[in-house]
Protein backbone atom coordinates (compact mmCIF):
# COMPACT_ATOMS: atom_id res chain seq x y z
CA UNK A 1 0.00 0.00 0.00
CA UNK A 2 2.83 2.37 0.89
CA UNK A 3 4.65 1.45 -2.29
CA UNK A 4 1.47 1.95 -4.31
CA UNK A 5 1.01 5.43 -2.83
CA UNK A 6 4.55 6.33 -3.56
CA UNK A 7 4.23 5.21 -7.15
CA UNK A 8 0.93 7.03 -7.48
CA UNK A 9 2.37 10.39 -6.46
CA UNK A 10 5.77 10.05 -8.08
CA UNK A 11 6.34 12.44 -10.92
CA UNK A 12 9.36 13.56 -12.90
CA UNK A 13 9.57 17.25 -12.13
CA UNK A 14 12.43 17.33 -14.62
CA UNK A 15 9.78 17.37 -17.34
CA UNK A 16 8.12 20.50 -15.90
CA UNK A 17 8.76 23.66 -17.88
CA UNK A 18 8.47 27.31 -16.85
CA UNK A 19 9.36 29.83 -19.52
CA UNK A 20 9.07 33.62 -19.55
CA UNK A 21 9.77 34.75 -23.07
CA UNK A 22 9.26 37.54 -25.59
CA UNK A 23 8.87 35.09 -28.48
CA UNK A 24 5.60 33.44 -29.38
CA UNK A 25 5.11 29.83 -28.30
CA UNK A 26 3.69 26.76 -30.00
CA UNK A 27 0.87 25.17 -27.95
CA UNK A 28 1.14 22.05 -30.10
CA UNK A 29 4.79 21.52 -29.15
CA UNK A 30 3.70 21.90 -25.49
CA UNK A 31 0.86 19.42 -25.95
CA UNK A 32 3.14 16.89 -27.63
CA UNK A 33 5.63 17.23 -24.75
CA UNK A 34 2.80 16.72 -22.21
CA UNK A 35 1.78 13.53 -24.05
CA UNK A 36 5.25 12.14 -23.27
CA UNK A 37 4.41 11.86 -19.56
CA UNK A 38 4.44 8.07 -19.57
CA UNK A 39 1.93 5.28 -20.29
CA UNK A 40 -0.35 6.30 -17.43
CA UNK A 41 -1.12 9.68 -18.99
CA UNK A 42 -4.90 9.75 -19.35
CA UNK A 43 -5.74 13.46 -19.33
CA UNK A 44 -4.23 16.63 -20.73
CA UNK A 45 -5.83 19.98 -19.91
CA UNK A 46 -4.50 23.15 -21.50
CA UNK A 47 -5.31 26.81 -21.27
CA UNK A 48 -4.17 29.56 -23.62
CA UNK A 49 -4.84 33.24 -23.05
CA UNK A 50 -5.00 35.61 -26.03
CA UNK A 51 -4.95 39.41 -26.46
CA UNK A 52 -8.62 40.33 -26.98
CA UNK A 53 -10.14 43.48 -28.41
CA UNK A 54 -12.33 44.22 -25.37
CA UNK A 55 -10.09 44.79 -22.38
CA UNK A 56 -10.43 47.37 -19.61
CA UNK A 57 -11.07 49.78 -22.50
CA UNK A 58 -12.55 48.98 -25.93
CA UNK A 59 -10.69 48.72 -29.20
CA UNK A 60 -7.53 47.19 -27.76
CA UNK A 61 -4.79 47.02 -30.38
CA UNK A 62 -2.15 45.42 -28.18
CA UNK A 63 -0.60 44.93 -24.76
CA UNK A 64 2.78 45.51 -23.23
CA UNK A 65 3.75 42.97 -20.56
CA UNK A 66 6.31 43.86 -17.89
CA UNK A 67 7.58 41.36 -15.30
CA UNK A 68 9.98 40.97 -12.40
CA UNK A 69 12.73 38.66 -13.72
CA UNK A 70 13.66 35.92 -11.29
CA UNK A 71 10.74 36.42 -8.95
CA UNK A 72 8.26 35.52 -11.68
CA UNK A 73 9.81 32.11 -12.29
CA UNK A 74 10.07 31.45 -8.54
CA UNK A 75 6.39 32.27 -7.95
CA UNK A 76 5.25 30.05 -10.83
CA UNK A 77 7.38 27.18 -9.52
CA UNK A 78 5.70 27.60 -6.12
CA UNK A 79 2.28 27.47 -7.78
CA UNK A 80 3.21 24.24 -9.58
CA UNK A 81 4.50 22.81 -6.29
CA UNK A 82 1.27 23.78 -4.52
CA UNK A 83 -0.79 22.23 -7.32
CA UNK A 84 1.31 19.04 -7.11
CA UNK A 85 0.56 18.72 -3.41
CA UNK A 86 -3.19 18.99 -4.00
CA UNK A 87 -3.59 17.08 -7.25
CA UNK A 88 -1.97 14.20 -9.02
CA UNK A 89 0.13 15.84 -11.75
CA UNK A 90 2.49 14.04 -14.11
CA UNK A 91 3.86 17.11 -15.91
CA UNK A 92 3.16 20.85 -15.79
CA UNK A 93 4.20 23.38 -18.43
CA UNK A 94 3.72 27.13 -18.01
CA UNK A 95 4.75 29.77 -20.56
CA UNK A 96 4.16 33.50 -20.21
CA UNK A 97 5.15 36.11 -22.75
CA UNK A 98 6.51 39.57 -22.03
CA UNK A 99 7.03 42.72 -24.09
CA UNK A 100 4.75 44.03 -26.85
CA UNK A 101 1.87 41.72 -27.89
CA UNK A 102 -0.50 42.67 -30.71
CA UNK A 103 -4.24 41.90 -30.75
CA UNK A 104 -4.88 38.16 -31.17
CA UNK A 105 -1.44 37.10 -29.93
CA UNK A 106 -0.93 34.32 -27.42
CA UNK A 107 -0.08 35.60 -23.91
CA UNK A 108 0.02 32.61 -21.60
CA UNK A 109 -0.09 28.81 -21.74
CA UNK A 110 -0.72 26.39 -18.87
CA UNK A 111 -0.74 22.67 -19.64
CA UNK A 112 -1.15 19.76 -17.24
CA UNK A 113 -0.74 16.05 -17.92
CA UNK A 114 -2.35 13.78 -15.36
CA UNK A 115 -3.84 10.34 -14.93
CA UNK A 116 -7.38 11.64 -14.46
CA UNK A 117 -9.28 14.58 -15.89
CA UNK A 118 -10.35 16.01 -12.52
CA UNK A 119 -6.73 16.56 -11.49
CA UNK A 120 -5.75 17.95 -14.88
CA UNK A 121 -8.62 20.48 -14.96
CA UNK A 122 -8.21 21.57 -11.33
CA UNK A 123 -4.44 22.00 -11.46
CA UNK A 124 -4.62 23.89 -14.76
CA UNK A 125 -7.33 26.30 -13.57
CA UNK A 126 -5.73 26.76 -10.13
CA UNK A 127 -2.36 27.70 -11.64
CA UNK A 128 -4.01 30.18 -14.06
CA UNK A 129 -6.10 31.77 -11.31
CA UNK A 130 -3.22 31.99 -8.83
CA UNK A 131 -0.81 33.27 -11.49
CA UNK A 132 -3.13 36.20 -12.19
CA UNK A 133 -2.96 37.46 -8.60
CA UNK A 134 0.49 36.37 -7.42
CA UNK A 135 2.95 36.26 -10.34
CA UNK A 136 4.64 39.66 -10.87
CA UNK A 137 3.43 40.58 -14.35
CA UNK A 138 1.87 43.93 -15.26
CA UNK A 139 -0.19 44.59 -18.33
CA UNK A 140 -0.31 47.89 -20.17
CA UNK A 141 -3.24 48.08 -22.54
CA UNK A 142 -2.97 50.02 -25.79
CA UNK A 143 -5.92 51.34 -27.80
CA UNK A 144 -6.59 54.20 -30.22
CA UNK A 145 -6.73 56.72 -27.38
CA UNK A 146 -3.39 55.82 -25.84
CA UNK A 147 -2.16 53.39 -23.26
CA UNK A 148 -2.85 52.67 -19.59
CA UNK A 149 -1.91 50.17 -16.92
CA UNK A 150 -4.58 47.53 -16.37
CA UNK A 151 -6.06 47.47 -12.84
CA UNK A 152 -6.34 44.18 -10.95
CA UNK A 153 -9.91 42.90 -10.96
CA UNK A 154 -11.82 42.02 -7.80
CA UNK A 155 -13.19 38.99 -9.64
CA UNK A 156 -9.63 37.73 -10.19
CA UNK A 157 -8.86 38.10 -6.49
CA UNK A 158 -12.05 36.24 -5.59
CA UNK A 159 -11.32 33.42 -8.04
CA UNK A 160 -7.80 33.05 -6.70
CA UNK A 161 -8.98 33.05 -3.08
CA UNK A 162 -11.69 30.46 -3.82
CA UNK A 163 -9.03 27.74 -4.14
Amino acid sequence: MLVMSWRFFRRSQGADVISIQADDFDPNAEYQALRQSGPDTGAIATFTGLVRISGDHSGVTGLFLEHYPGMTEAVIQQLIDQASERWNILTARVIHRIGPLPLGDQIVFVGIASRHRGDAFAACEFIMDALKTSAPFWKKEINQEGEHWVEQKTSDLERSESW
Partner: protein
Amino acid sequence: MTEALSDTFTVRFFARLREELGVEEMTLKAEPGLTTGRVLEQLASRGGPWSQLKNGQPVMIAVNQAMAKEATAVNAGDELAFFPPVTGG
Protein backbone atom coordinates in the same frame (compact mmCIF):
# COMPACT_ATOMS: atom_id res chain seq x y z
CA MET B 1 30.32 60.15 0.23
CA THR B 2 29.94 56.57 -0.96
CA GLU B 3 28.02 54.18 1.31
CA ALA B 4 29.65 50.85 1.99
CA LEU B 5 27.90 48.15 -0.06
CA SER B 6 27.48 45.98 3.01
CA ASP B 7 25.38 48.70 4.72
CA THR B 8 22.83 49.06 1.93
CA PHE B 9 19.78 47.43 0.46
CA THR B 10 18.19 47.84 -2.95
CA VAL B 11 14.66 48.98 -3.78
CA ARG B 12 13.11 48.24 -7.16
CA PHE B 13 9.92 49.66 -8.62
CA PHE B 14 7.81 48.15 -11.37
CA ALA B 15 5.09 49.09 -13.86
CA ARG B 16 2.94 52.14 -12.96
CA LEU B 17 4.99 52.89 -9.82
CA ARG B 18 8.26 52.85 -11.75
CA GLU B 19 6.76 55.23 -14.31
CA GLU B 20 5.13 57.64 -11.83
CA LEU B 21 8.15 57.79 -9.49
CA GLY B 22 10.55 58.00 -12.40
CA VAL B 23 12.85 55.54 -10.64
CA GLU B 24 13.63 51.93 -11.51
CA GLU B 25 16.03 51.10 -8.73
CA MET B 26 17.58 52.85 -5.73
CA THR B 27 20.07 51.99 -3.01
CA LEU B 28 19.28 52.89 0.59
CA LYS B 29 21.18 52.58 3.86
CA ALA B 30 20.08 49.79 6.19
CA GLU B 31 19.27 50.59 9.83
CA PRO B 32 18.68 48.26 12.76
CA GLY B 33 15.00 47.29 13.15
CA LEU B 34 14.03 48.47 9.69
CA THR B 35 10.85 47.05 8.11
CA THR B 36 9.41 47.37 4.60
CA GLY B 37 6.57 49.47 6.06
CA ARG B 38 9.10 51.92 7.55
CA VAL B 39 10.88 52.12 4.17
CA LEU B 40 7.54 52.94 2.53
CA GLU B 41 6.91 55.69 5.12
CA GLN B 42 10.36 57.20 4.62
CA LEU B 43 9.94 57.22 0.85
CA ALA B 44 6.38 58.60 1.07
CA SER B 45 7.65 61.52 3.18
CA ARG B 46 9.55 62.76 0.14
CA GLY B 47 6.20 64.14 -1.04
CA GLY B 48 4.95 64.58 -4.61
CA PRO B 49 4.40 61.27 -6.44
CA TRP B 50 6.09 59.48 -3.52
CA SER B 51 3.15 60.15 -1.18
CA GLN B 52 1.13 57.50 -3.04
CA LEU B 53 3.28 54.83 -1.39
CA LYS B 54 1.31 55.41 1.82
CA ASN B 55 -1.85 57.20 0.69
CA GLY B 56 -2.45 55.94 -2.82
CA GLN B 57 -3.49 52.73 -4.50
CA PRO B 58 -2.44 49.42 -2.93
CA VAL B 59 1.29 48.65 -3.05
CA MET B 60 2.57 45.08 -3.13
CA ILE B 61 5.86 44.34 -1.40
CA ALA B 62 8.55 41.75 -2.15
CA VAL B 63 11.73 41.06 -0.21
CA ASN B 64 14.38 39.02 -1.99
CA GLN B 65 11.85 38.15 -4.70
CA ALA B 66 9.27 36.69 -2.32
CA MET B 67 5.99 38.37 -1.35
CA ALA B 68 6.34 40.25 1.95
CA LYS B 69 4.30 42.39 4.36
CA GLU B 70 4.84 45.80 5.93
CA ALA B 71 6.19 44.11 9.06
CA THR B 72 8.86 42.19 7.17
CA ALA B 73 12.38 43.02 8.37
CA VAL B 74 14.82 44.71 6.00
CA ASN B 75 18.51 43.85 6.26
CA ALA B 76 21.63 45.03 4.46
CA GLY B 77 21.99 43.20 1.14
CA ASP B 78 18.24 42.70 0.71
CA GLU B 79 16.43 43.35 -2.54
CA LEU B 80 13.10 45.08 -1.87
CA ALA B 81 10.50 45.68 -4.53
CA PHE B 82 7.35 47.80 -4.51
CA PHE B 83 4.78 47.37 -7.25
CA PRO B 84 1.07 47.65 -8.09
CA PRO B 85 -1.22 44.61 -7.82
CA VAL B 86 -0.22 42.18 -10.55
CA THR B 87 -2.23 41.79 -13.77
CA GLY B 88 -0.61 39.06 -15.88
CA GLY B 89 -2.20 36.04 -17.51
